């Protein structure tokens, strides 16, 4: 694809991502914030595509924008927060200080990234330089390139991740369970079994 076209696409997506992010922070209602968040995630997924991380782009949309955000939405609905249009920003003095701190972090990060000049990350989008990653994508495919190390080098962390998900499911059940009279037990095992994979 044309590099200029890619750059243009990237610029648009970046603007959308930043704008949506600001929308998340300053959105009036939780539902609005959530929808801005989805938009931000979608544009980041687009950037992933440009960076040739196709698999991540796909699960970004499916898992993040799809599953996790819907989970948030459910909770907002469940708690009936959707009609709460009051702005819950902190006071202006606090906000100024917060702005200073977060801006400082952003600034320091930018400054850090500037130091990376000359280490191979300096070229704009870093496209297209036919680097090692591109070659292995050609060789193994977009999925294979991530699956191969995931099931070899990183197989132990990968399995532990499964356990983490199982624990999270059980934990979520225990935490959110209503205390029913008569002390019914939580059957976390069955639900966790699905969640773990």
């Amino acid at each position, binding site marked *: 694809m044309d590099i200029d076209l890619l750059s243009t696409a990237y610029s648009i997506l970046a603007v959308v991502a930043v704008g949506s992010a600001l929308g998340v922070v300053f959105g009036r209602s939780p539902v609005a914030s959530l929808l801005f968040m989805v938009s931000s995630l979608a544009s980041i997924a687009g950037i992933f595509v440009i960076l040739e991380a196709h698999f991540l782009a796909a699960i970004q949309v499916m898992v993040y924008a799809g599953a996790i955000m819907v989970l948030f939405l459910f909770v907002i609905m469940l708690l009936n927060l959707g009609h709460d249009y009051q702005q819950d920003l902190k006071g202006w003095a606090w906000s100024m200080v917060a702005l200073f701190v977060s801006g400082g972090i952003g600034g320091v990060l930018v400054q850090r990234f500037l130091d990376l000049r000359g280490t191979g990350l300096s070229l704009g989008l870093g496209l297209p330089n036919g680097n090692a990653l591109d070659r292995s994508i050609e060789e193994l495919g977009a999925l294979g390139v991530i699956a191969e190390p995931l099931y070899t080098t990183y197989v132990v962390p990968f399995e532990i991740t499964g356990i983490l998900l199982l624990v*999270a499911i059980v934990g979520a059940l225990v935490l959110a369970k209503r205390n029913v009279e008569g002390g019914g037990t939580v059957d976390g095992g069955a639900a966790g079994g699905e969640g773990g994979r």
Partner: protein
Amino acid sequence: MNAVLALSAVLFAIGTLGVLVRRNAIIMFLCIELQLNAVNLALVAFSRAHGIDGQIFVFFVMTVAAAEAAVGLAIIIAIFRHYETVDVGSFNLLKW
């Protein structure tokens, strides 16, 4: 300077700002997810120079984020049941 890394830094700063200025626990949570995404973005950018490992990490970050969302939202529900609010300013349990 890589444009993607700059975008990542900006998104991270916005996420941080959101965590600091909002009182609604769910929005704070969303902003934390935003921060995680900023990090993901940076990792993907790095992976172009340093190999596939960065993308693997993104994969793990997403998994952890999912687990975190499940447990965190459960906690928020539990808190809401107790206090009838998700305003973090209205409770100060996190001591002792």
